[in-house]
């Protein structure tokens, strides 16, 4: 009898154990079972199910740009694909104030030309970079482009260009929309910075745009003429041996003063992205910095005097990952911003997951919780740029995430060798010479970008396969932009070593929208830092005018709000960087509103 009882218990335990063993397989089965188009026309299916469909129109739009990766010191040739894996960027500007959004793409090889595609207003573009003096900027000895941000630093009404490089940072003054003059020397920037991010912000709210510049490799390295191979991060997740960051204060006379030290921003982590917004309602923009090989940093702006780093206190700087993007999104229509940071996810190898930091409710102290997993926007890939935007105008902010590191030989992977070295001691990991030869292998290559659709309750569904977003390029920089002034957000994606994707977005017609073009008077003229809050039947939604956001990118300056089927807007409230507040009652929907700050 006792034996029988033991046998039954053992059988029960083994059945229980078997159930546990198959649990991962069952979860996998259900997590991959999703909706697939049942209609023969995928566009019809996408319209019906999701309200929009994307189509790559780069060729027919006349955008033939192809990014070229850097060629560096031969001592790095064995791992060149991973060292030279950045530099494809896109930023949006209306440089000639004709009311149509133009596109600026960077290339990253000596001799390669950057491109400024002027929007001709009929769905086509023409590269005018050569004519206006913004093409030949990758000259040998000056470094190569990594990204560009537009801002009207002298408040003359025309957007100027700051070009950051692995090399000499450059400032170009916009001469009334007809050409650009290089004013780098007069501006007073350093001779060499290996930078991978820059953003315009008015950190002291004095009406002049300042500039944050984030270093990646230390500035002492000329990556074309290396004296040492000890240029790599000292740790995969705790590195502080990257390039230094800078804050340049605009003096209002065309010059900039390095105020990094006094502002408390002199970090030397491996910075890849930054974003600025008034996240606490103080009237001054806080600064969020995403770092590769380490924790991210959250700098609280102390009344425009200096910044206090509060990453650890706010829970943001707790777990080190591979931060590559910063973007702000009000995904729950509550009038508050969450912060989206991309990292690395590679099945079975590295499960960092992307972060979406949302401020804790009811907490007197500023604390954030990472809700990316709960919202379904955690598992991207080797993610770079990400942008929020209402892609179907249903009133809920969606999310586009760029993926893919190195697409080389198919069916190969460098991950094993990569993980071998990155787990090692500082003396091993920090010397490029110790890194195994890549031998043409891929690493997290051929990944599809993510398009996460917000269901309005803060839950996202991945729909890239179903709405036309199936391309698998090594995507880097993403920008949301209305290219045809239709009240629709199109998407432009810059891809490493490849052509860009220019998605024309077709949206169901029953949804409404409202847009705002802002121009500061007391505030900086670009209105960078202004926050617009729209109140309508669908909720309360806020957006901020940014001077560069995402990864090496800049969206259109105009703010776009989807309204769903609501045909009336109750109110739009504009908080200008100067501190003034402007209210528009019942602004017309389906209209681009141009608003100038009240004097």
């Amino acid at each position, binding site marked *: 009898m006792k034996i029988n009882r033991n046998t039954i218990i053992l059988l029960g*335990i083994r059945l*229980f*154990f078997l159930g*546990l*063993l198959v649990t991962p397989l069952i979860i996998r089965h259900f*997590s991959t079972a999703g909706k697939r188009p049942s209609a023969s026309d995928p566009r019809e299916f996408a319209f019906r199910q999701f309200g929009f469909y994307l189509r790559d129109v780069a060729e027919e739009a006349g955008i033939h740009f192809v990014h070229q990766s850097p060629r560096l010191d031969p001592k790095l040739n064995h791992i060149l694909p991973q060292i030279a894996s950045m530099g494809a960027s896109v930023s949006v500007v209306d440089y000639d104030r004709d009311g149509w959004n133009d596109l600026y793409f960077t290339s990253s090889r000596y001799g390669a030309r950057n491109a400024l595609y002027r929007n001709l207003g009929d769905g086509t573009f023409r590269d005018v970079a050569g004519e206006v003096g913004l093409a030949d900027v990758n000259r040998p000895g000056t470094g190569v482009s990594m990204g560009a941000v537009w801002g009207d630093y002298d408040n003359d009404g025309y957007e100027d260009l700051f070009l950051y490089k692995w090399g000499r940072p450059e400032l170009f003054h916009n001469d009334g929309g007809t050409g650009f003059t290089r004013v780098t020397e007069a501006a007073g920037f350093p001779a060499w910075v290996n930078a991978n991010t820059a953003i315009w912000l008015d950190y002291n709210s004095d009406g002049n745009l300042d500039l944050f510049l984030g270093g990646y490799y230390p500035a002492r390295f000329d990556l074309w003429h290396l004296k040492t191979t000890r240029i790599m991060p000292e*740790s995969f997740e*705790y590195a502080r041996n990257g390039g230094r960051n800078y804050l340049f204060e605009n003096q209002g006379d065309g010059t900039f003063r390095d105020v990094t030290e006094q502002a408390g921003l002199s970090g030397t982590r491996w910075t890849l992205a930054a974003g600025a917004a008034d996240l606490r309602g103080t009237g001054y923009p806080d600064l969020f910095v995403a770092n590769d090989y380490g924790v991210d940093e959250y700098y609280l702006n102390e009344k425009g005097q200096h910044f206090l780093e509060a990453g650890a206190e706010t829970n943001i700087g707790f777990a080190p990952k591979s931060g590559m993007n910063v973007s702000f999104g009000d995904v729950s229509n509550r009038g508050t911003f969450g912060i989206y940071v991309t990292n690395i996810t590679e099945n079975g190898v590295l499960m960092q997951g992307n972060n979406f930091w949302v401020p804790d409710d009811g907490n007197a102290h500023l604390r954030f919780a990472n809700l990316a997993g709960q919202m379904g926007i955690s598992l991207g890939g080797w993610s770079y740029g990400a942008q929020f935007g209402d892609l179907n105008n249903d009133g809920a902010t969606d999310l586009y995430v760029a993926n893919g590191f190195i697409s080389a030989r198919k069916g190969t992977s460098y991950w094993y060798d990569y993980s071998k070295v990155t787990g*090692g001691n500082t003396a091993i990991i920090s010397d490029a010479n110790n890194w195994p030869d890549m031998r043409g292998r891929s690493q997290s290559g051929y990944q599809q970008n993510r398009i996460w659709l917000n269901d309005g309750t803060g839950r996202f569904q991945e729909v890239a396969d179903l709405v036309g977003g199936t391309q698998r390029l090594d995507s880097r920089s993403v920008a949301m932009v209305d290219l045809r002034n239709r009240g629709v957000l199109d998407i432009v994606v810059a891809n490493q070593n490849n052509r860009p994707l220019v998605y024309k977005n077709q949206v169901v017609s029953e949804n409404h929208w409202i847009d705002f073009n802002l121009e500061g008077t007391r505030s900086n003229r670009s209105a960078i830092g202004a926050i617009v809050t729209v109140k309508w039947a669908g909720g309360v939604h806020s957006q901020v005018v940014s001077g560069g956001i995402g990864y090496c990118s800049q969206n259109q300056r105009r703010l776009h709000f989807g309204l769903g089927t609501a045909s009336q807007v109750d109110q739009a409230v504009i908080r200008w960087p100067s501190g003034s507040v402007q209210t528009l009652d019942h602004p017309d929907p389906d209209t681009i509103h141009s608003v100038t700050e009240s004097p």
Partner: protein
Amino acid sequence: MSDTSSSDAHDQKPPVEGKTSSWLHRLDTRYAPPVLITLILLAGHLSFGILESYKTILLTIGTSVLTELLLGRIVLGKWRNLSSAYITGISVSILIRSPMYWPYIVCAMISIASKYALRYRGRHTWNPSNFGVSWMLFTAPFSVAGLSIQWGNDLWPMLVIWLLGLFIVWRANRLHITVTYVVSFIVFSLLRSAITGDLFWAEVAPLTGPMYQLFVFFMITDPPTTVGTRKGRMLVAFFIAFVEFVLRLNQFIYAPFYALFLVGSVAKFLELRRNARPVETASAGA
């Protein structure tokens, strides 16, 4: 090491060898491993913040302890010593990474349940956390990866942990296992370097990382799942390194876990079979 995450050892008297007058020898070796792993955890977290969140470690420890209590009560009819479940919980929370919670729960439950479900002649043959972690890495790569936090890659924390770990495995009369494995790993690294053409430092690099610190001190030295003789244990450690060598040549990132999974259980099975003797089914401690 005197124990890792197996509980058989906790139900036995700890081995006492040699002079017992020293205060060191009066230490109950059952508690050295939980103390060491707690110290490693605290040191790692306070210096580098290795815990991605407190929730996951509380989840894995809680799940392990609860599973141990329930299964111990059901199978053995008694409440078990919980220090091994505690170690399993910590090991799981350190060794796997996931942005979701379910893998931590399932891995902790699989680890503990393996001790009760997979038995031969009354003994379990797999190191529990090795079994759980290997299984999750193999079957759930869409949600789970191995340890990625690197303890800063600094020399000093690495040396402190190695010295502390070596001291405790020496105290537990398991130093020969760790040394055999480490020496074998280094020799095979040289061999791999010659075969692949990669630098020796690249091949030996993993040994300097935190995953191996847990592996050489907490997994391969586990008494209930190691063989009985000193020579046998050294031979098994060598074979683990050898199988890992083969797996590494085939680019298995988690080669050490899989090598222990394969070699350790086979060795224990063979020993139990060779030393066949009556053992009460399911009574010698799960």
